[in-house]
C-alpha cells in the first residue's frame, strides 16, 4: 500500500476496535525519540544537513538486514504530499502537527498497516511510533524497540552512557520514551468525577491531554494519558506504571457506567437515543457537536443500548468527519458551513449503511 492509499483510506489498524479493553481504551501508542550522532538537532539543522538525515534514514530502511527484520517500509518527503494529504496524516494520528511546520525538510516513514511510523526531522531527527488498538502497550514497545534496533544497525545514535538517548528537549532525555493510551471516559465525565480522577493521575508522574494531542481541548470525552518521566526508569517500568494506572481508570469508568445505568437509566437511554437521532437525521453538524454526539452514541453501543452499530465505526467517523478528510472526500475546498453540511450527510450515509448490513 502506498502513501496515497494511506491518505485515501480513512481506516487504520488502530481504529479496529480489537485488542484488550477496547470498549474504553481506544488505542495504545509508544514513541521513542532518537537523534543521529555528530549532527545538530533539527531546529539548528541547515537545509542541506536536514536532507542528509532524510537520506541516511532512506538508506537505513533499504538495508538488507533491516528489510529482513522489519519488512518493507516506505519513506515519503512531506513536500511530496498536498496540504490536505499532510493534514490527513495528522487526523489519523500517524504524524504530529509539528511535522507540518517547515515541512520542506521533513519526511515520514510508514509501514503498510500504519502500525509503525517514523517522523524524520521533527523535534528530534527520528521519532519512532507504534499505534495499536486497545490496551497493548507492551506489544507496542516490543515493536518500536525492534524497529529501533533495525534502524540502529546502520545509524549511529547520539547516546550517552550516563544520560542515555540524547534528545533536543531535556524532557525526553534518557529513554526518549513516551507511552500513551487514548481513553473514552464518558461515564466519569457524566458522574462529575473526571476532575478528581485526572488530578490524581497527574500526581503519579503522568500527563493527561485532550484528543488531538497537545494544544487542543478534550473533545468527545477522549483523554490521552502518558508518562512524563523519561530518565532514570527502564522502558518496561514506565510502561508497567502506565498500564497499572490505566487499569485503575478502567475500573473507575466501568463503575461509573454501572452506576449511571442503575440509577439514571432513563436519562442515560434518553441521552444516547437523542444522540443517535441527531446523528441520523441532522442536516448541519459542526465538528464539536459531532464529537460530543459520537461519544454518547459510542457509550450507548458499549452498554448495549444501541445494538446494530459496530463500535469501531464511531472511531472511524471521528476521523472521517475531521476537516481535511471532508475536503478529501468531496474533492474540493469547503467553507465551514459547507463542511458542516457534508459532515452531516456523511454521518447519515455511514450510519444507515451500517444498519442495513
Amino acid at each position, binding site marked *: 500500500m502506498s502513501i496515497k492509499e494511506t491518505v485515501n483510506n480513512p481506516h487504520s489498524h488502530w481504529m479496529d476496535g480489537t485488542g484488550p479493553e477496547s470498549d474504553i481504551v481506544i488505542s495504545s501508542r509508544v514513541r521513542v525519540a532518537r537523534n543521529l*550522532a555528530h549532527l545538530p538537532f533539527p*531546529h539548528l539543522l541547515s537545509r542541506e544537513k536536514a536532507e542528509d538525515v532524510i537520506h541516511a534514514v532512506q538508506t537505513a530502511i533499504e538495508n538488507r538486514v533491516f528489510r529482513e527484520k522489519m519488512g518493507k517500509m516506505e519513506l515519503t518527503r512531506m513536500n511530496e504530499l498536498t496540504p490536505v494529504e499532510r493534514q490527513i496524516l495528522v487526523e489519523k494520528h500517524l504524524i504530529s502537527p509539528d511535522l507540518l511546520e517547515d515541512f520542506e525538510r521533513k519526511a515520514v516513514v510508514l509501514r503498510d498497516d500504519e502500525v509503525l511510523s517514523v517522523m524524520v526531522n521533527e523535534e528530534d531527527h527520528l521519532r519512532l511510533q507504534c499505534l495499536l488498538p486497545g490496551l497493548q502497550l507492551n506489544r507496542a514497545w516490543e515493536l518500536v524497540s525492534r524497529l529501533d534496533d533495525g534502524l540502529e544497525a546502520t545509524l549511529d545514535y547520539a547516546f550517552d552512557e550516563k544520560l*542515555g538517548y540524547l534528545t*533536543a*528537549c*531535556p524532557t525526553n532525555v534518557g529513554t526518549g520514551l513516551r507511552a500513551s493510551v487514548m481513553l473514552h471516559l464518558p461515564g466519569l465525565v457524566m458522574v462529575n468525577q473526571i476532575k478528581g480522577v*485526572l488530578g490524581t493521575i497527574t500526581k503519579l508522574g503522568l500527563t493527561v491531554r*485532550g484528543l488531538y494531542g497537545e494544544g487542543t481541548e478534550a473533545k468527545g470525552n477522549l483523554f490521552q494519558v502518558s508518562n512524563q518521566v523519561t*530518565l*532514570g526508569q527502564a522502558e518496561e517500568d514506565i510502561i508497567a506504571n502506565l498500564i497499572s494506572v490505566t487499569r485503575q481508570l478502567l475500573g473507575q469508568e466501568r463503575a461509573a457506567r454501572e452506576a449511571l445505568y442503575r440509577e439514571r437509566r432513563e436519562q442515560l437511554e434518553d441521552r444516547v437515543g437523542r444522540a443517535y437521532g441527531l446523528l441520523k437525521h441532522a442536516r448541519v453538524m459542526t465538528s464539536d457537536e459531532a464529537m460530543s454526539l459520537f461519544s454518547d452514541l459510542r457509550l450507548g453501543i458499549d452498554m448495549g443500548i444501541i445494538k446494530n452499530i459496530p463500535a469501531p465505526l464511531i472511531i472511524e467517523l471521528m476521523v472521517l468527519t475531521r476537516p481535511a478528510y471532508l475536503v478529501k472526500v468531496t474533492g474540493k475546498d469547503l467553507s465551514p458551513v459547507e463542511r458542516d453540511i457534508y459532515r452531516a450527510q456523511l454521518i447519515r450515509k455511514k450510519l444507515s449503511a451500517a444498519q442495513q448490513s
Partner: protein
Amino acid sequence: MECERCHQRPATVHLTEIINNEKRTMRLCEQCARELQAQAMGFFPQINLHNFLAGLLHNEFGFPTTGPTVAPAGARCEACGLTEAQFARQGLLGCGECYRYFGPRLEPVFRRIHGNTCHTGKVPERTGGKVRVINRLERLKAQLREAISREEFERAAELRDAIRELEKELQEG
C-alpha cells in the same frame, strides 16, 4: 450586575480563585463560570511545554524571568554554537554535545523534571554493546585495584583474566 467576562448576561455566580495566596473574586454568568471551570481542569488552555521549560531554565541558569535577556559572553556549546541564553529561551538543546557542555548545570533541571540524573533503560544494540563492555571493564579494573590493595592475589588473578578476556573482545568486536 453584568457578568465580568462576557458583559452581556447577568452575573449569578461568584467564582473565587486563589493564586499564589492572592484571592480574586469574579462575578460571572452561569455559562462563563462553566467555561472557566472547564478550563481549570488542566488541559483546556495548554501550557506550551517548551515555554514552560524555558521559564524553568531561566531560573536555573540565573537569568531574570522578565525583561530582555542578555546573552552572557562565551557561554556557548563549542560543537553547535548554541548559547545558554538561546537554550533558556527555547528550551531546546542544539546537539548531543550540548549535554556535555552544559552538563553540570543541567543536572538540577533533570532532577526537577525526572527526579533522576542517570539512564537505566535500553542501550543501543550495536554501538551500545561497546559502551556496556567498557562500563564492565572499568568496574573490573576498580575491583582489581581493590583486590591488590587488600593483597587478595588469587582474586586479583581471576579479575586480571576477566579483564584480558574483555579487552580482547573489545579489540576484536
